[in-house]
Structure formats: C-alpha cells, structure tokens
C-alpha cells in the first residue's frame, strides 16, 4: 500500500446532464481515479451547501458540483441557482481556509464523456497537489491547550 496521498473526491451530479456525462465517460472507457465517487440528485439546484460541508467533514478532500450547461437545465433554471450559490460558497469557503481548487463547479452535458473525465481528472490532480484537507474538528479532537 503506497504512502502517497490519495484524495477522496465527492462529485454531486444531476440526473439529466452530468450523471449522463459520467455514464458517457464509462461507455467510452475513459479513466479517472477511483477516489472519485458520485452522489446523484435530480437537479444541481437540489444541491444544498450543507451537503458540500458534510462531504468535507466526512473526509472529502475535494467536492465537485456538476450541472447542466446554462440554458439547458431540464428543470429550466435550477443550474442558475446552483451558480449563484456556488459563487457565494467559494467566497465563504475561502474564509474557512478551504482552497479554491477543493470546490469546483462545472457544467457537463449528458453526451460529454470526455469533458466529464477531464474535469474530474483535473480536480483530482489539483486536490492531490494541495494535500489532505485537515478540517478543524479532526485537528482539535484532543482538546489541545494553547497556553501550557
């Protein structure tokens, strides 16, 4: 077993576009690291920021949110809400010390197997370069004192 850091990545994908894109990547036998695991929702608009935080808390080193291209959302405009939330999330995550490369928003259509693999692989490599995400709860579970 290698000592090398293998990031854990969660990708939230929407049923109609990006999940289909992931399947397309499969049909084309494109490869990406098995550290990437997908959680399916019906629309990227369903993705609650709480899900993203819960992913980090449970060990994800990086989180991807992948939806339909703007204008193509199966539910008209769910992806625009996702876009707004993601922009604000990115700003706020920075204040939590979570680097930009650990939270990715992108658009992948059902036929875009190549794009899916490329986005996921790039995210994986970027997160790997950053190292593991040490969130606060793990670091302070020992009730370390500051002033001994």
């Amino acid at each position: 077993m290698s000592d090398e850091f293998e990031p854990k990545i969660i990708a939230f994908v929407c049923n109609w576009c990006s999940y289909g894109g992931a399947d397309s990547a499969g049909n084309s036998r494109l490869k990406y690291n098995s550290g990437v695991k997908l959680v399916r929702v019906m629309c990227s608009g369903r993705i609650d920021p709480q899900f993203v935080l819960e992913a980090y808390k449970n060990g994800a080193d990086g989180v991807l949110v992948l939806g339909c291209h703007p204008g193509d959302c199966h539910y008209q405009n769910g992806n625009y809400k996702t876009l707004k939330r993601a922009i604000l999330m990115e700003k706020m995550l920075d204040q939590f010390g979570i680097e930009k490369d650990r939270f990715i928003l992108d658009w992948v259509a059902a036929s875009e197997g190549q794009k899916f693999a490329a986005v996921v692989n790039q995210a994986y490599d970027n997160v790997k370069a950053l190292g593991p995400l040490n969130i606060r709860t793990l670091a302070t579970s020992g009730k370390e004192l500051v002033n001994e």
Partner: protein
Amino acid sequence: MSKPKIAFYWCASCGGCEEAIVDLDVDILPVVGAVDIVLWPIALDFKKSDIEGFQDGEITVSFINGAVRTEEQQEMVHLLRKKSKLVVAFGACSQLGGIPGLMNFSTGKNMMDEIYKNSPIVNNTEGTIPRTKCEVDLGDNKDEKGELTLSGMFNHVYPLDQIIDVDYYLPGCAPTKNIVVGAVNAILTGNLPAKGTVLSPNKALCEECKLNSTKPDKFTIKEFKRPHLHKVDPDKCLLSQGFICMGIATRAGCGAQCISANMPCEGCFGPTDNVKDQGAKFLSAVASMIDTDDEEEIKRVIDTIDDPAGYFYRFSLASSILQGKENK
C-alpha cells in the same frame, strides 16, 4: 419536602445571560421562592466543594450559559452534569458556541497574541501570556516557593453539548423573558417535551416579524447593504431591502425585537430543528434570491457581502458542520 435545587453556571460568556435572569424582574420572585439556588457565581457565594457534596442527580436543573473553552469550564460542566437531573444549555454561547465560538476561525495562539501582544493599547514587550502554571512566593519567606495553577485554555471553542449530554436548550443572546419563564415553569411542573428539544417555536423568525407582510413575492436583490451605511426603511422587510437579515434562517421566539429596532436579525436563536448548518442554509437562500443570471453581475452582487462567514455564522460557528477554519 425540600425545595428543588437549581444551579446557574457560566462558561465563556459576556454576562448577558445572567442579566437575562435578572431581567425576569418581578417574574423571578415566585421562582426564587419555589426553589433553592445552590450555585450562581455572579450573585451567590457557593463553592465547587458544595456541589461536589451533593448526591448524583440531586440538583433538579442546572442552567449553564457560555461556551466551553477552558479546562476549568470543562471540569465544572462535567461535575454539574453528574450532580443534576437536567442540564439546560442557556443562551446562544452554550447552545451554539455563540460569539466566543468565532475564535474557531483562528487559533487559540493567534487569539492570545492579539490580546496580549498585538493589541494597540497593550504594552507587553516581554510577550507575557497567561500560563497554566507559574512559580510564586509563599508568604513573606522568599525562599519558600509554590506553584500557582491556572486553567488551561483550549485551542477550540465548544458548545456545551459537545462536552456533556444536554437535556434542553434555551436559545438566544440572551434568551428572551418569555421563553425563560416558559421553560422554568415547564421544568417546575414537569411538563417537558422530548429530551433534546430547543425550548422555542420550531419556525423561522419571519412568522413573528411585523414586516413579513411587506415582503414581495419575489426578492429582487441587486446589492447587499450594511445597516450603518444605508438608510433602513422601517416599514419594509429588511432582507428585501438588501440588508443581511438572518431571520429567514433563525428560530422564532424573541418576537423579532431587533427588527422592531430597525436592526436586521443576527441569527442568535440559531437554526430550526431540520437545519444542520444555519450559515450554509442562509447562504443557499440568500444566493438564490440574487436577481440576475449573468455570471459577472452575480459576482458583483456577491462582492457586496464583505464577510459571508462572519455574518452567516455569527453565533453558530462552533456548532456548524465544519465548526471553524482549518486549524493550521
């Protein structure tokens, strides 16, 4: 039959929750008459050894306010837990971590440096910070030395329920009179809901706010505003004007007092039951109401919120999903 014993204790707090008890004013008298207060550091001179002398569960209820950040507080709350039938987390700091919890955006070391070394009004050239032990002279004899110990401070701030088992929560900074009186009566009459309940309505503040009827069906927010930089229209929903009012993501029970004073809600009552992370939920709602689909415009509107983490987690950081910033 002896009167039920109640205890008040404070951890990392501002004293406002003690004020809240005093603010009950005449309503406190029947309570005081009906109970035996066995601990209340701000007002009465009971000692830790008094509490240690009780049987387990002998105290009917302990109201503990403040967040836990020192060894002493940790020890005291464990003691009170042992000796009490019920423990009520009193106030936002105890329930959520509160304002002290904001230290979790930094580190204990940084905090010590800021307060004792870097503050512009402090002259501390030796860089002295409080330590957990130091040597002191014993009496007049300079040859006899002793060790003075002080409680250690943790690098992290904890809400009460991350340290001990909590039975009920009284939310608020500070809890308002109505919910405190309601809770005390419920305890004294044994009329309590399920363990773990927050003793305030499980609904967002909008329900109690007199400005809710002025809210449009669609929010058309094109910029966010800070109340000291813009004129607040007292007759229109503050959020719809662009002020960051946390009321939509905050539990009701306070009667929307802050809004009545033209100040947007800061979220001190914490989230409702179905929400894990008040800050994240508020972010989701407020981002969704930005009135443009153009990416550049969206960024411009979001830039008008200068401190999202601070606003959205003002009281709840320590109890949120991430609990704070990566502790590097």
